[in-house]
């Protein structure tokens, strides 16, 4: 199309040039006339084009088919069309110029246009056939938006729940390759962690890693590609040393602080853009050590926003200080003070009253904090701690509560329906609150909520607002986390029944980490904004987005 602008109807051009040189603006009528004439010319050209190109093709086809060149006869017809057309295009241009000297420039330009269009259509057709050959991935990957006027929103599935799709895995590997930090040559890249063991078919779309094969095996030891603080953090995540939504976010922000402190802007780069690029491979690394939690995701979004909002005229030290202060204030506001506010809210609004029997599940840092604070305020209550294998986190919760002096009972989840008649309230922690009001928490939480509902016991979920997530999920299968299956193996009295489980073809071990609880089972959510029903989560999200 580059030609078309230059070459114009010779007559009109002279007039316009004359007008311009005389310094007169083209009047409206003249402009309209120009436009009409251009359109007419185009139409005429197109008609002539088609005829001309057809003629040329007929002429040139015997030529091209005779020329053996690089076209093996076995090529499918679809592919022959695009290869024939470009072959004709350069051939036809001089030919047309030679054969049709009268209409000189317009003809060739129009012909080129038609040929280009034909080429594009042919390529599109060939792409379609290729996609048809490779299978029904069109269904799971980008759903093809029908070329209708509606233009529906195209939803793309995140890659961490498409593990059984080999194309997606290849894309992920390529992405990790590309994400190496720029000063290191291509040999050093973020390694790809491979899955371990047989995955139960319902969950085969998720990653399942083994703790015995850490990602650090493939990294160099004085780790240069990834900042040492991030490597340490990744190891702590994968070993479970830092576990729990709040702890993981705080540890992540602490590691980012160290990264920012050790960061120096390279030449000709801006801190606001380069630092974000530096953080990308670190985040991929952490994601492979252990899939990111919703709270971590929100923290990362916040940091990235803060970094990109740094003005370009800001000096490096100032910028770094600003970022460090931002991180400090984020942790202070969203985690520490939010916890204090939630505890205050729960205690003052008499959610924990004298004589209460409170049931907690697993080890939620926020729920423990609330109970300890209530005990300090001299409320008389007792706690029932419900625990489940393989993590047995309840033991840690039990330790912390008993250390404070709270009287506790400890049961396993299988005894929950036995103990529930004694319970007056259930306090649950949350890993994330989804946009449709579902609560994502440790596996087993939805069971407890269900049984509590059956016994008419109120269920209260405590959650800070920074864990609210835009995702929507109605079941625990679509997106979850699979932990190391070897954790389920236990040795009792010297025997390990599940020892050789990998060799049994019909045996699969499933160690789920999260599950979702529907809002019907949750009576109240206590956040630092107040006590809201589960269905008000999207409102909070909306308000938050408006604020930002």
């Amino acid at each position, binding site marked *: 199309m580059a030609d078309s602008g230059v070459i114009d109807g010779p007559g009109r051009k002279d007039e316009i040039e004359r007008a311009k040189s005389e310094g007169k603006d083209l009047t409206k009528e003249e402009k309209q006339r120009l436009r009409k004439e251009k359109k007419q010319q185009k139409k005429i050209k197109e008609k002539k084009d088609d005829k001309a190109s057809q003629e040329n093709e007929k002429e040139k086809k015997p030529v091209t088919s005779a020329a053996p060149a690089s076209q093996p006869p076995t090529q499918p017809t679809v592919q022959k069309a695009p290869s024939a057309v470009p072959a004709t295009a350069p051939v036809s241009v001089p030919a047309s110029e030679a054969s049709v000297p009268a209409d000189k420039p317009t003809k060739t330009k129009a012909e080129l246009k038609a040929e280009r269009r034909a080429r594009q259509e042919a390529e599109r057709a060939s792409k379609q056939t290729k996609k048809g050959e490779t299978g029904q991935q069109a269904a799971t990957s980008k759903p093809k938006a029908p070329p209708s006027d509606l233009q529906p929103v195209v939803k793309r599935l995140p890659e961490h729940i498409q593990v059984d799709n080999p194309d997606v895995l290849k894309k992920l590997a390529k992405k990790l390759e590309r994400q190496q930090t720029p000063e290191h040559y291509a040999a050093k890249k973020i390694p790809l962690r491979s899955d371990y063991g047989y995955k139960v078919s319902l969950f085969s779309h998720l990653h399942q890693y083994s703790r015995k094969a850490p990602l650090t095996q493939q990294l*160099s*030891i*004085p*780790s240069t590609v990834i900042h040492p603080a991030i490597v340490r953090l990744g190891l702590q995540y994968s070993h479970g040393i830092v576990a729990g939504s709040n702890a993981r976010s705080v540890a992540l922000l*602490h590691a980012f602080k160290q990264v920012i402190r050790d960061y120096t802007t390279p030449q000709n780069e801006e801190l606001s853009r380069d630092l974000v690029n530096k953080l990308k491979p670190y985040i991929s690394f952490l994601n492979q050590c252990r899939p990111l939690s919703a709270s971590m995701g929100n923290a990362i979004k916040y940091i990235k926003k803060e970094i990109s909002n740094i003005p370009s005229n800001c000096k490096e030290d100032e910028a770094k200080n600003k970022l460090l202060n931002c991180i400090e204030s984020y*942790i202070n506001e969203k985690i520490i003070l939010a916890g204090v506010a939630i505890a205050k809210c729960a205690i003052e609004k008499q959610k924990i009253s004298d004589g209460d029997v409170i049931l907690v599940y697993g080890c939620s840092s926020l729920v423990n904090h609330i109970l300890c604070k209530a005990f300090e305020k001299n409320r008389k209550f007792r706690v029932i701690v419900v625990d489940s294998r393989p993590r047995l986190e309840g033991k840690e919760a039990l330790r912390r509560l008993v*250390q404070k002096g709270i009287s506790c009972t400890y049961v396993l989840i299988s005894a929950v329906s036995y103990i529930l008649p004694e319970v007056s309230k259930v306090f649950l922690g949350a890993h994330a609150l989804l946009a449709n009001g579902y609560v994502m928490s440790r596996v087993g939480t939805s069971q407890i909520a269900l049984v509590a509902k059956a016994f008419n016991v109120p269920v209260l979920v405590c959650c800070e607002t920074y864990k609210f997530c835009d995702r929507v999920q109605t079941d625990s299968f679509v997106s979850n986390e699979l932990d190391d299956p070897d954790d389920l193996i236990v040795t009792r009295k010297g025997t390990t029944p599940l020892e050789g489980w990998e060799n049994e073809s019909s045996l699969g071990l499933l160690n789920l980490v999260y599950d979702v609880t529907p809002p019907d089972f949750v009576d109240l959510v206590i956040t630092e904004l107040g006590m809201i029903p589960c269905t008000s989560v999207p409102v909070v999200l909306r308000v938050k987005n408006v604020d930002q």
Partner: protein
Amino acid sequence: MELQAVLMAAGGGSRMTDLTYNTPKAMLPVGNKPLMWYPLNLLEKVGFEEVIVITTKEVQKAMSTDLKIKDVKMKLDVVSIQEDGDMGTADALRHIQPKIKTDILVLSCDLITDVALHEVVDLFRAHNATMAMLMSKAHEFTETVPGQKGKKKTAEQRDFVGVDKSGKRLLFMANEADLEDGLSIRKSIMRKHPRMLIKTGLVDAHLYCLKKAVVDFLTENKSISSIRGELVPYLVRKQFSKTVNSQKLKDDTDDQTQEKNDGPLLISSRDEPLLQLAQERSCWNDHRGDMSEAYHGGKLRCYVHIMDQGLCCRVNTLAAYIEVNRLAPKLFEEPSVHPSADISERCQMGSDSIIGAVCHIADKTSIKRSTIGNFTTVKEKVKVTNSIIMHGVTIEEGCNIQGSVICSNAVIGRGADLKYCLVGNGQHIEPEGKSTKNSSDRL
């Protein structure tokens, strides 16, 4: 930078003086490569780019001429110290303290291993440990040691190593020599770790990851001179000492002086409150059953990785040297015959023998399970079995060498028959000489 590597190559080889009186221990050939090449290779494979090598001037000179060491792609920062032997490993660390900017990985030059180094370093990283070390199950040496008459009862002193039930945390470390009247374990340790496994059959690989704070601590405490002998047991004991754990005893004057000494050890990093917060909020604990938090609130932690498979050998005795010559070549996929060696066709060479560079092996020789060094000449009708021949040796016709170690530049006369002998540097064995279980040096 995360870790700096320090290679201790100034050791004298006091337990194998027969071999080391002429060649420094770091340059002894093992499988035709100098001994210190093996730890350097380990570091290079794992991804280190720089190593600080602490050694004597003699070794430094030898290093500059050795081809294999020149092959090493890492940057070697050689620091030479006096050869009088009074400087212990900890003294050496004190000497290079200005160069140390971050945590260090200390290696000994006589370590030959194929350990996955990330196992040790991961313990160091994940638990934010003060020290992480490597140990391995000991193997009996089965080969007869030349120069030893009769089976020598190893008067080696045992090491008692106590680990917790996960097998990773180091609770107790003492050498038999230091335990005069029995092994006593403090009650505080038993209270915190009621299940402790005490192992004696372990070999210390002398590979330590130490925090930078430990090096700073060494500069203040000049009384510690050996890492293995004094520093490591000190750190292991300090894990459970009262001043480390409770801050309430600041009034006590005795504890104050101790605290001053331990000051550098307990230096906390910046953002300690954030780390504390993360640990508080985390629902993880390394032990169950008592009321204390993770790690019992202790800031000083020592970890150990115990290898049960694979090769891990310290070459500090003659028996170890011979054993390692057998095993070390299997670590690498190199051809057993150097391309520049000239071997005649009628030579019978076993598959587990190694021939060095520019060797001349004549006809009708038989070489089985042996290592032949560079520039050696082996004449006709020689039988070499189970032996180690170092560089520059000439073996005349008709010799029979069995189970022996022949040091560099020796000449074995015609028809000599050596069984389980050790021939020193530059020695000449008379023709038709017969020696059994003899060690000839400095005659």
